[in-house]
Each structure stands twice: as structure tokens, then as C-alpha cells.
């Protein structure tokens, strides 16, 4: 428990500013501050099932916390406490990890992903087959176990792999894409918030170059809409994704949405009423 530093929470509330559970409900309890204050009061995991499951692990709270509380770690630990039996996972090393969402729900994206990787000289096969176990890790049913991979196409799989992220590779090769204006680019919030120093400048460069709308807020962090979380992917306790889509797009007049996050791509396609493309579908 040594790194479960909820005692360091000073209650400033910066974490609530971009918390998707808070945006939807307005409940302090569902935020990192609320959970930490409850833990500081001596509550056990069993008394906090709702706030433990409300978190989508978007990483906003970790990125903004002035006292560096490890909120994502705390939630994962609490979920393991709730789960009781915790197994292990063994992700298989692959040159390309597409992830379950692309393989099972959006296989039409695979050719463009493979083509993009071919153009930048990255091996694109053989691809992954089974689940890497990230959903079990996020649900508290398994401990994380890192494996090496070449390129990972789904942010949630990066919980299990040390690898390059497809979307960030795309940001480094923007000349390969035709990005028709006006568009809204949904940056992968987990990547932007957790790898802020590297990822934010890449996505911000896209915004500056094209003047597109994005899911960044005033703190230069990324808002999420929960589709690419264990709740959104498993359907258990999912947040209100259509409402989150509407909130994100409320000020944007963009005709189309582009993203490099597979689950968010599917959610925008279903709920936004606007043309939605995965980044590799925009290859010239």
C-alpha cells in the first residue's frame, strides 16, 4: 500500500475539472478527491463500490494533481480488493497489436492501418489474436503484466504493452494524410493525460497546423467520454456516452470527426450524427 498515497490528497479539487464521472453526475464522491477523502475517513473498498467503478481511468486526475496522488493506481488497487481473486495475464508479444475493438467491431479499419504502417516502414504482421487482458486488469481481476510489442493501435492495450502507439505515429507523419477541414480531432485522452510531456505537443501541433477543434480543455489536458474504458467496452456501469459526445461537440461546428482511438471512433460514429473517420482512413 506504500504507493497508494491517498493521504497526500489536499482536497484542492483540480481533479474534478475534467473528470468524466463528475461531468455527468456532479457528484464529488465519484471523483478522485471524493474517493480520497472517503479513504482518508477510513472507509473500506466495500463501502465505496460506486466511486470505485465510476472511474474510467482517463488519467486526468493524475496529470493535474499538485501533490502527485496516484489516483489510477488507487482505483485499480481498490478494484482488486473488491474482486477478491486476482489472476495474471500473459499478453503475447506481436509486431502489431490491434486490440479486440478493432478486430471484432471495426475490422474494416485493418487494411488502412496495415497500409499506414507499410508506408512508414513498420512491420504490420502477424497481428494479435486473443485479448491482451487489459480489461481484466482494469476490472481488478488481474495484475498488469507488461509485454513488448511493435505498434499498438488501441490505447487500452497499452496497459499491457510497452510499445509505440499508432495514433502518435500518425501525428509524426501528418503529410501522409488528407484531413479535410473543418474537422474535430478527438485525441486519445489516456495517452495525452498520462504521457502528457510527449503526447500533448504532438496533438497540439495538429491543432495549430489545421486549426481543428479538439477535446483539450484550458489546463491543456484531454477530456474523455468513457467509451474506451472497461465500463464502455464491457457495458458494465458505463457512463452516459451519448451525453458525453454531445458535451464534447457542443461548441464545435466541424462537419466530421477524426480520431485515433478505436472505441471513441465507434462511439462518435454512433452518437454524433457527423461523419466519423479513423485516422488511417484519411491516408492520401
Amino acid at each position, binding site marked *: 500500500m506504500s504507493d497508494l498515497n491517498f493521504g497526500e490528497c489536499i482536497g484542492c479539487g483540480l481533479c474534478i475539472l475534467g473528470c468524466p464521472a463528475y461531468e455527468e453526475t*456532479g457528484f464529488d464522491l465519484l471523483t478522485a478527491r471524493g474517493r480520497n477523502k472517503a479513504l482518508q475517513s477510513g472507509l473500506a473498498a466495500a*463501502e465505496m463500490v460506486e466511486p470505485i467503478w465510476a472511474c474510467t481511468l482517463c488519467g486526468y486526475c493524475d496529470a493535474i494533481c499538485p501533490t502527485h496522488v496516484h489516483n489510477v493506481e488507487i482505483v485499480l488497487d481498490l478494484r482488486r480488493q473488491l474482486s477478491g481473486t486476482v489472476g495474471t495475464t500473459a499478453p503475447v508479444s506481436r509486431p502489431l497489436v490491434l486490440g479486440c475493438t478493432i478486430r471484432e467491431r471495426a475490422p474494416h479499419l485493418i487494411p488502412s492501418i496495415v497500409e499506414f504502417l507499410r508506408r512508414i516502414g513498420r512491420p504490420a504482421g502477424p497481428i494479435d489474436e486473443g485479448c491482451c487482458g487489459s480489461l481484466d486488469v482494469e476490472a481488478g481481476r488481474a495484475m498488469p503484466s507488461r509485454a513488448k510489442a511493435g505498434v499498438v493501435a488501441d490505447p487500452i492495450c497499452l496497459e499491457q504493452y510497452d510499445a509505440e502507439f499508432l495514433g502518435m505515429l500518425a501525428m509524426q507523419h501528418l503529410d501522409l494524410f488528407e484531413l479535410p477541414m473543418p474537422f474535430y480531432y478527438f485525441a486519445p485522452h489516456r495517452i495525452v493525460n498520462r504521457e502528457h510531456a510527449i503526447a500533448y505537443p504532438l496533438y497540439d501541433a495538429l491543432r495549430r497546423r489545421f486549426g481543428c477543434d479538439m477535446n483539450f480543455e484550458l489546463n491543456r489536458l484531454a477530456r474523455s467520454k468513457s467509451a474506451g474504458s472497461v465500463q464502455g467496452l464491457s457495458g458494465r456501469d458505463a457512463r452516459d456516452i451519448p451525453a458525453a459526445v454531445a458535451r464534447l461537440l457542443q461548441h464545435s461546428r466541424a462537419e466530421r470527426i477524426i480520431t485515433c482511438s478505436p472505441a471513441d471512433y465507434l462511439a462518435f460514429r454512433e452518437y454524433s450524427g457527423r461523419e466519423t473517420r479513423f485516422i488511417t482512413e484519411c491516408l492520401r
Partner: protein
Amino acid sequence: MHLRTDRASRACYRTDGGQIVYGFPDSVAHARSPEDVAGVLRNAQRDGTPVTCRGGGLTTEGESVAARGILLDLKGMHRLIECDGKTAWVEAGMTWHQVAEALRPLGLDYTSAPLNMLSSVGGTLGVGGIDVNSPRHGCAADQAVELEVVTPTGEIVRVKEGDEYLERVLLGYGQFGVITKARIKVRTYKPMTVRHVLYTNIGVALEDMMRLVEQDAVDACAILTLRDDVIALILGFEGEPKALPLHDTAEPIVYAKMAARFALHPWRLRDVGFLLRRKNDLLPALHNPLFVRDGAVHDRTVVFSRLIWKYWGGPQVVIPDLAITRANFEAAARRGIEVCKTYFPYFTLYAVMIRKFGDRPRYEMSAIPATADDHVCGIEFSPLLEGARYSRDHFQRFKNAIYDVGLELGGSYYRFGGVMKPYVRRMFGDKMVNRHRAMKQALDPAFILNRDVVFDRPEAG
């Protein structure tokens, strides 16, 4: 409305920003509309149940901590309803960050708000709200031109500038009603170029700031110190920075004097580490390339708000303050510094000026002291704990000593509620306090609303 009574929901409101006062409410009501608020207040009035309002929960003296009764969380009312380019009609549970986020796509910004953007609009209008541009625009409460208020008996009313009830509610410390919507002044969003100059004498720094404010020579200004070793006058320009006639000391001379002082007092050498650490907290934050473009800070409110927590934040936050007249500004600062040195090795002062707009009734019994001056002066004295822990008694003695300075010099305080309530009568006098308490009792017969924060209940008084 959601009413929650589970232990976790109540536990997350166990303390406020100060983390000195603790308490558990019996239940938490999450209001989504003025009708929700009215329902809670009507029932509470009938049952005599205390209701403690909470927005950002960033009070420091326990004002938003409920030891029992209902904790009324207003943050669920967080929409920008309309904006005509000059004013915005907002729900009072919005944090200032949410206001800024909502206005930015329109190219607008709020006029004056607390540096801490986690504060809610309603809570701020109830106590004041001081910004670095308050020398020009006044406190946040003076930006409100219209309110929707739920009276303590549950009536929803709308009041405008000139209405007596609006004057009671603004700067009313949540005693006379619950603000549910506010029409606040807005202005064009502008990035700010931030400069600072150093002083070795707090009196000279204050004189320069008062002169700049009198001449309206800068868009924003404040003084921030590290102990009394480093005194910085911070200047904000919403355009090209101007050369200003100041009596500051060149940085090399400041550092040379400091080195000489430490050489003569070698036991203070450990203070060098403190000064460097704090300097390293402050300056990189102000020059963070994420927020600086072409030399100007964009979204300075976000930058300052995050900096506040890095600089002042900690497991215990104690910020006694004095609101004082210009004539006593320097004396208050010097005497406050001596108090700080008695209680803590490290501390900081934050000094600002606040424009007054005549003698508005709202200023009576508030943080705006009675004076004929165009501006009033505020100083916050904050111990920087550097990892040390102190007892509540130690903090209380420190706060009392600062507030005693205020009693001797005349003026007021920003934080006079909660555990500092005993100073209310000493500062404002029985006659004024009794008059305001009678107004409260007329509006709030069962004394349910934010009970005991400012006034004693009739049976106890």
C-alpha cells in the same frame, strides 16, 4: 435532486480547503435547480434542520463543513444559460473554471474572480473574490448585476442592482439566501504579459503598488513575498508591457544583500534551500511553454489557479488576512510579518488592492472595510509549512495574533466566519452585528441556513 445518506457520500465532505475543521453531515443533497434548493430549505425550516451550503468547498475556517444536518451541494447547477457579450447569466454552482471554459469559445472572459478557479460563483459572490485585476475592477461580488436567490424560507426571487435584497445577499456570507443564478459582467478575453520587480523593503513595494493603482497604470498587480527576504511586485499587462517609474531594487543587488545577510547569520543558511525551492515552484509555472505564447501568458487564470495549489497548498492551509485602509497598509504588513516570524520559520504574504464603488450597503459588515478611500487593501499571511505539522491550537494562536493586529489598526477580514467567528463582534461591534442578525432572523426564522458560521443563534446569543 439526489439525496444521499450513505457513509461514503457524507465522508467526502468531511473537511474544506483548510483541512483544519472536520464534520460529517447527516445527509447530502445534490441540487440541480432552484426548486430543489427551495424544497430543501422549506423542509429544513419546518424541521429546524441546519443546512450548510457548499460550492467548491474551499473555505478555510470550516464555513462549508457540516457537523450535522444537510450538506447542500450546489455544484450540480453548472450551466452557462445565456451571454449577451457584456454579461453572462450563469448558474451559481459553476466553478470559475467552468465559467472560463464556457466563455472562451465566445472570445470572452469573466471580469474579476478569485485566483482559485475551483471556487464556485455563488460562494464567491457571498464573500468577495479577489483577483489580480481587482485594483481596477473590484471584487468578484461587484461584478454581479442580477441574482436569482432562494430565500431561507424557500421562496425563489430575482433581484437586480438597486434592490435591497441583492445588497444583503452579495457579501452576505451565505446568511440571507442561497444564490442560484447570477448575471455577471464579462469582457473580451486577453492574454496577459506578466513581469515582476524585486524590493528589499516592503514599505517601498507597497508605496509603488498604491501609486500604480492610483494612476491606473497597470492592468493587474499584486505583491508576493517569500518571508520578507524576497518581495516581488507582480505586474500584469493586457498588451505591450510599459516602462513604469518604480523604486525597485535590481535583482543582483537583492541577491547580494541577501548573501551578505546570510553570511552574517550563517544559521539561516538553510533558508537558502527554502527560497530556491519556492522560486523553482513559481517561475517555471509562469513561463510554462504550454501557456506562454509570444511572451504572454494565455489562460493566466488556469496558470495562477494551479500555481496556488503548488505554492500554498498542503495538508493544512491557514490564510489569515487583513482588509485594511491605505493609511494602515504598511503598518499591517510589518506587524503581520513579525507575527508570522513568531509562529513559523517560513511564510508568504500576498497583498492586493481592491477597488470600491462608493458606499454600497453590501460593504457593511463585509471584507470591504469602511473607508472613504477609492481602494481598500488586503493582505494574506500564509505559513509555508515545508512538510512540518502543527497543532490546531498553534494555527489558532497564529490566526488570533494576526486578527488582533486588525483589531488594533481597524479594518476587516476576508475570513471572519467559521472558527474565526468570535472576531465578528470585536471587529464590527454589537450594534452592527445585532442589526444584521435581526435581518437574518427575519429572513430565516429557524436559523437553518449556514447556521453558526457568522451569527450566534438567538437562544445562544
